């Protein structure tokens, strides 16, 4: 026996839980608890907790077993549906990543050519080699339209897969 326990402590707990403590239980147990600090404490705590349990059980209302079962069954079904949809979510995420990757790769390929194009334009301006104003305006208009179309295409290519990914993601 350690300093923490007494061989009769379970008897005390059982007497309290059985509703026999202190009047209808073994007199020797009550006498023992009177001078055993551990059993006295246990009796005190058990009586209070048991009183609380008795009181709580009167008021407690639990849902019907069928209701708990039904909710659990529906939730299990939902979770399995979500688990089945998970590969689609992953597919969207991968598609989005591929589109972004392709866009970046294209940009990287075009990037080295930009300085030479800019150079050519600068030289053309310096050498007064610009075409007539009508042609310049038409070119500017065409470039602006092309830029607009390019921005919209890029937006669709990048934003659409991302939007799909977030729309179908679970969390």
């Amino acid at each position, binding site marked *: 026996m350690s300093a923490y326990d007494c061989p009769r402590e379970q008897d005390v707990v059982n007497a309290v839980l059985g509703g026999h403590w202190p009047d209808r239980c073994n007199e020797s147990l009550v006498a023992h608890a009177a001078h055993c600090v551990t059993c006295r*404490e246990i009796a005190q*705590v058990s009586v209070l907790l*048991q009183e*609380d349990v008795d009181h709580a059980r009167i*008021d407690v209302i639990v*849902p019907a077993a069928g209701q708990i*079962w039904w909710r*659990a069954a529906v939730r*299990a*079904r939902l979770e399995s549906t979500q688990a089945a949809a998970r590969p689609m979510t992953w597919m969207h995420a991968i598609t989005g990543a591929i589109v972004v990757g392709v866009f970046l790769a294209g940009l990287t390929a075009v990037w080295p050519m930009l300085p030479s194009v800019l150079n050519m334009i600068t030289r053309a301006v310096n050498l007064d080699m610009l075409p007539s104003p009508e042609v310049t305006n038409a070119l500017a208009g065409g470039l602006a339209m092309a830029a607009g179309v390019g921005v919209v295409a890029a937006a669709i290519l990048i934003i659409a897969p991302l939007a799909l990914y977030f729309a179908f993601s679970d969390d």
Partner: protein
Amino acid sequence: MREITLTDMERLGAFDEAERTFQMTEEAFRTFYELTARPVRVYLARMTGDDRLADDLLQETYYRFLRANRAFDNDDHRRNYLFRIATNLVHDHRRKPFMEVPAAAIAEVPDAAAAAQAAERAARRLDLHRAMQRLKPRERSMLWLAYAQGWSHEEIASAIGVKTASMKAMLHRARQRLVALLKTGAQS
């Protein structure tokens, strides 16, 4: 976020799937639930101090229990596992610092003598609730399982996930703290 909902046909199918997914049949569950639901609900309410949270945790406890993919030796083993789930859920939700005063504790009683007796009992319960709330969640669980449920040290150790060897010392310390808090409460 897209909500996945079920059609009526799918709901009906859910029952067939439940029979396959859950670790017990509906009949067996009903029997087990009738035996354990009230003690578990009282335990959850006392550990959280919140009746609505206790209702939610009760559903969650049984759901996790049904989904648990493990074999049980007997009903006691099954019940211990159920309380272990409940204990873990309570510890996950332990945010509420103090327990609310149960409405029933201040309910009216017909005559004066009975009223005085009921008031005395209510005050004792209130002191107990306050003292319990000042204990650590694990201490609360241990004391409840030991002295309100009458579980053995082995059963409590299994339910709250500690070694049986250290159970006696931990329970002793928790009990002494509760008694000291009750004394302090009674004096104040």
